[in-house]
């Protein structure tokens, strides 16, 4: 059964801004589903509607078979969220944050202490547990917020820009945690601006542009749709890049010809696989051009 089902969903804010238009998709159990889009495209609006934080104005959205407005109470028992631009309380420690949320969510004191230690250790925060958040770096603060989202063992986790402000190691820790959750059958719906993050994590992704779903599929589907293929970069060894030649071979024979020429002429050949970023730019590029026109 699909965990999330969205059918013709629309959201117009009271001020008249139309943030979502006729959005439809499904997310299966255990899937890591990424929402991509430019700033203001509607990703957070969509995530907030599904997390029962925002009322939709058109269409239908269900989570665990429950409609997000009428069934919100039942949905909330099984989800957790890391909101975008959330901040920790500066005068509370990492331990305070996680333990208090455990207690608010109904755990006993002993369970709360145990669970707090478990998640803080998982994110290498245990050694910082008693420091006030005011004394933690931005990356460590973001990890505290992530720990808060993970305490309740949710079946569906909403992460809105979860790795913003994290260093490369911190980002990899989050990715590892997301993968572990997915292996346990947890469904993860996340928004991100980092294409490498989506590429590493997403089973499927949706690209939203101006409130409309412009793409739905796997990372490979996105690259195929955008027509972004393998690139070969041919250059002189030790060259400064001025004599660089970027080729887009369309067949294996063409790749072979390029490599043979490079060997003959003593040139260096680098294979560059297509990136999601290029695909993303191709897919939303139409609308960028429209705006420019």
């Amino acid at each position: 059964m699909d965990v999330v089902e969205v059918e013709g969903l629309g959201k117009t804010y009271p001020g008249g801004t139309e943030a979502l238009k006729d959005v439809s998709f499904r997310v299966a159990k255990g899937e890591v589903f990424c929402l991509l889009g430019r700033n203001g495209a509607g990703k957070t609006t969509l995530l907030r509607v599904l997390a029962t934080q925002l009322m939709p104005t058109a269409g239908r959205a269900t989570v665990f078979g429950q409609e997000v407005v009428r069934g919100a109470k039942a949905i909330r028992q099984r989800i957790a969220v890391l909101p975008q631009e959330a901040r920790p309380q500066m005068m509370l420690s990492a331990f305070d944050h996680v333990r208090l949320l455990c207690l608010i969510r109904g755990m006993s004191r002993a369970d709360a202490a145990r669970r707090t230690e478990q998640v803080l250790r998982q994110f290498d925060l245990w050694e910082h547990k008693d420091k006030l958040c005011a004394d933690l770096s931005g990356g460590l603060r973001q990890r505290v917020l992530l720990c808060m989202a993970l305490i309740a063992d949710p079946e569906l986790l909403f992460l809105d820009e979860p790795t913003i402000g994290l260093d490369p190691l911190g980002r990899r820790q989050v990715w590892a945690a997301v993968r572990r959750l997915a292996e346990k059958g947890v469904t993860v719906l996340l928004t991100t601006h980092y294409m490498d993050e989506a590429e590493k994590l997403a089973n499927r992704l949706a690209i939203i542009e101006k409130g409309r779903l412009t793409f739905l599929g796997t990372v490979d589907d996105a690259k195929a749709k955008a027509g972004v293929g393998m690139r070969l970069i041919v250059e002189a060894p030790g060259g400064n890049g001025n004599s660089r030649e970027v080729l887009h071979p369309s067949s294996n024979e063409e790749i072979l010809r390029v490599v043979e020429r490079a060997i003959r002429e003593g040139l260096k050949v680098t294979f560059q696989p297509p990136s999601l970023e290029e695909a993303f730019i191709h897919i939303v590029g139409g609308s960028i051009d429209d705006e420019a026109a």
Partner: protein
Amino acid sequence: MTRLREAWYIGLWDSLPLLRDPMILILLSLISFLPVFFLFIFLGAEQALPALVGAVVLSLAFVGMGVAQSVYFNKHWFRFQDVLVASPVSPLSYAFGLALSTLIAASPALALSFVILLLSKPVGLLAFLAVIAVSLLMWLAMVFIGYVIGLTTKNTRRANSIPQVLSFLLGFLPPVYYPLSMLPGFLQPVAMLVPSTHAAQLAKYYFGMIPLSSAEILIGWAYMVGFVALMAALTLRKARWVDP
């Protein structure tokens, strides 16, 4: 019981940062007592004592209004409300928890003020309980006003400034620190529109500092209860757990 537990821990979440900042606690303790200090210096202990009663009532009113900042910051700054919306936590627990946090944060100041007051002017248990009840009604009214401000403000500066201006209008201007009779005749009915005037009049009466007729006592209580009910209705109208 579960809901009370939720509210208690939400209250702790919101108040612990304040309790860990001694300067805020000192500020909360001092702000309503500042006029009492000056009245004591310039007019002597006799004039300062009624002002001390007013200060006790206002201590609770000021902290109640502080809920505006809790509501605003937990919604727009920490996004803690969003975390709780997407959880089994009840909106009533959240609202009660934030209100409770103002009492937790103010508890040292309140304990100190009641001790000073009782040492200065001992009263019977019933009178003391009546003053507590008046103060709590005043607190509740201010909590509801604070909610309306916090719920309708989307600007950090306003979330800070509006409660301060209202504290001034409801606390320092009306006859709370000074006798109602000191106001010019035409201003006295205007002052009676302000709930803190009724709260201070009732508290001073129960401490045996001013006489009030039965009708005035009844009107005072009725006005306070009515004001709280009105503010509660306004809050319920504005309150949103799920954003529209």
